[in-house]
């Protein structure tokens, strides 16, 4: 009996400490580096494993480790191709989209058959708002390797941005079908995206199902916590949303995550807590507003929707729109313009976003409000429908 209990204890302990895919990759790469410390590809594998762990945990310390490891790789083999790919990935992580595009374009010229480089071209172009170029690069991914998961995921996001939610769900499902069961974080990520898409499509029950599945596959997954919170808001379960978003902010203490929490607190009627959160958010966000890696979208909406400060909103928006013209930046800029009373200019910006086909409810709400102010009721109704 005693032996059995001891065995069960060990079993449970082993289960609770089961390594995540990124942790296993870090272990493997670390062992390889120890065995052969002058081999650049092992450092690349380790750098990438750290970057994956950063995604799993939202802990930025892993990015520093990734960059440090990459430096060692380049010290051994300067400008090695795989290392430069990871560099591009880190540039995307720092939101240096123009730099990432430049690096990816160079890599694509060196090896135009490399699929992941097309992925970076898609990502950088999407974030900059160059949607046609993004679609072209994504099409190369699907043409070069029909059905590859990285390409399907890109197609899914592009379909979402172009308003094809059913098609987006279809390719995300295909991506999940071809992702190994042991890739728990990848699968949780895909489920989180599908929850997001179902919510956009208005199916709250399915969205809830996907979000909870994501959390069961990868417990406490920070992205899934936030997604389930969005479901709870749709269900008007605001207090539950606050709990989830507080947990997410504790795990990933970034300004934009605090903004989401503050908004949920306001919805839940927790006025004092919301005020504290908003104030803290403003400080945190302002501290990074001039960096590429910022929370300027949230800061703009904060100034418009909660602080009543259109001038500050417009100032931040102008800075951001000078860097990128993706639909969400255009939306934020339009909303700041509207708040400052320039509805005509606001309309011009939001129309650019709508022309892509985006069906995000926040963007549509802004478009509808702007149109109403311009007394273009048919447009307003169309946008709201």
């Amino acid at each position, binding site marked *: 009996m005693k032996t059995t209990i001891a065995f069960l204890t060990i079993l449970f302990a082993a289960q609770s400490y089961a390594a995540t895919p990124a942790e296993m990759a870090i272990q493997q790469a670390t062992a390889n580096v120890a065995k052969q410390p002058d081999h650049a590809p092992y450092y690349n594998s380790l750098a*990438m494993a750290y970057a994956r762990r950063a995604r799993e945990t939202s802990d930025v310390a892993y990015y520093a480790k990734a960059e440090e490891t990459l430096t060692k790789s380049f010290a051994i083999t300067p400008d090695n191709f795989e290392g430069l790919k990871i560099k591009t990935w880190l540039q995307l992580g720092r939101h240096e989209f123009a730099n990432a595009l430049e690096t990816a374009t160079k890599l694509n010229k060196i090896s135009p058959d490399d699929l992941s480089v097309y*992925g970076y071209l898609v990502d950088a172009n999407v974030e900059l708002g160059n949607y046609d170029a993004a679609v072209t690069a994504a099409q190369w991914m699907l043409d070069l390797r029909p059905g590859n998961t990285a390409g399907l995921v890109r197609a899914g996001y592009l379909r979402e941005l172009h308003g*094809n939610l059913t098609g987006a769900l279809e390719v995300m499902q295909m991506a999940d079908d071809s992702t190994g069961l042991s890739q728990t974080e990848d699968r949780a990520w895909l489920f989180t995206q599908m929850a997001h898409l179902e919510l956009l499509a208005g199916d709250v029950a399915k969205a809830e199902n996907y979000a909870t599945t994501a959390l069961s596959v990868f417990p406490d997954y920070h*992205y899934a916590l936030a997604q389930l919170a969005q479901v709870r808001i749709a269900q008007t379960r605001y207090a539950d949303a606050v709990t989830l978003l507080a947990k997410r902010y504790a795990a990933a203490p970034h300004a934009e995550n605090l903004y989401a929490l503050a908004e949920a607190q306001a919805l839940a009627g927790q006025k004092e807590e919301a005020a504290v959160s908003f104030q803290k958010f403003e400080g945190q966000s302002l501290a990074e507003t001039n960096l590429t890696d910022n929370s300027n979208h949230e800061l703009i909406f904060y100034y418009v929707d909660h602080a009543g400060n259109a001038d500050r909103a417009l100032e931040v928006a102008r800075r951001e729109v000078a860097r990128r013209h993706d639909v969400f930046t255009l939306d934020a800029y339009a909303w700041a313009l509207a708040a400052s009373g320039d509805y005509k200019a606001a309309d011009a910006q939001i129309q650019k976003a709508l022309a892509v086909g985006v069906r995000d409810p926040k963007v549509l709400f802004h478009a509808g409000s702007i149109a109403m102010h311009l007394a273009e009721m048919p447009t307003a109704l169309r946008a709201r429908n």
Partner: protein
Amino acid sequence: MKVRQTLLRAALAIGTATFAFSTHPAMAASHREAPITALDQKADITDWFAFVSPEHPDRVIMILNVDPFLEPSNGPNYFPFDPNVLYEMKVDNNHDGVPDVTFQFRFKTEIRNPGVFTGFVGNLAGIPAITALDGVGSEGLGLRQTYSVTMVTKSGSQVLSDDQNLFAVPSNVGPRTMPQYAQLRQKGIYTLYNGVRVFAGTVADPFFIDLGGFFDSLNMRKSATAPVLSAAIDGDDKNNYAPNALAGFNVNTIAIEVPITMLTSDGATHAVGEAAAVIGTYGTTSRRRQSVLGEGRGEAGTWAQVQRLGNPLINEAIIGTGSKDRFSMDDPINDKQFANFVLNPLAGQILASLGVPVPAAPRVDLLPLVQYIAPICPGCKPSDAGPIADLLRLNTGIQPTQPAFQKRLGFIAGDQAGWPNGRRPNDDVLDIALRAVGGILADPAKYGTPLGDGVNVSSSALQPTFPFLAPAYSGRDSVHQGPGQAGCALQPSGICPAN
């Protein structure tokens, strides 16, 4: 740096086992040259030919060979074309690198004897020998393919095979099943609209090369160092001095004979010195694509090109392994991105390292392969050169050479009707390509080293008439020819070799 939603979209691309793609080395000249085509045999173009017909000098022959290394005995299904592949022949006639005339071929498969375990049977169990593609004598054709031919021009598309059934000719199963195979295959030649003739089916692969020697890092049979031929071997257009790796293998072919007037920009024939006489051709295979934005959205067409072939050996011997798939799938009009591979080919640097005199880069002497200029287009002004594009250029004003007088080294040996002016099945493209890379187009006296592999002729007897390629090797009675592989029938005793 934070870990944000946008970042996570990128993150799925890397680090997952799902995304670790292996790259396969190039396998064989014109056969399986790009990693993708090595994995998609049915869509793999082995050779592309275009020449003025020696049979009818007012017509052009284009031949698209696909599906490499078909072992003739490989039943029970043998070698159908892929109904999911769109096979196309494309012609640029106004020198802009973009196709103006396209011929499309689409196949359908019909299972006629669903209860029989093999696709072809004859002279057995009451089923007569297969002597026809349709009707009496075709009962044993249990697996049969039909195809359609469509011509696409700027003014629209027209089905050329409107009112008749076109049957693809099956492989030669053996003498019991198909006792008169040569006659059977003649029945697969069809005349369509405006005298256009077509043939599709399995044939003996006309290509000839010592693949083993070439890809074992130029470990040729007749010379210890560089692939240089002796004068005696070089001068022999009738015999082989090294094993032809393609001997005994079949390949699937689509051949078309088209009046020149259907291909030129003004619908007329032109003399050799007129720019309009020169067309640029290539063949492609495509599969249905998954569109990024979804069906009917965005600008992506329905088809994704899997492979293209213009000049032989460009992708396999010139383009770097990290670019081969993109090259296969991109259009010739975008070939500027690969220009450096042509202007400073690695193969040229390798030859130089072996002591062969080679011109210095940039190799502008190779531009006639990728632009409309002399000597293939003597009538082209600099403004006619067009973009860098890998097209097999054919001067339709150059008279064809009758088969008996064709020279294996084609254009560079004074037989102007051969590659790189178009390409005929008899052209020894490896030897010509090696010499072109060696610089013979720049200065034959200075850079005319007699490079080659010692395989000088095709192992299949090429025919004097359409479709020119030899009938498929017999599944029962054919042999391959590899080092130490003489085959039973070639043994004086008739006893098969022990291994």
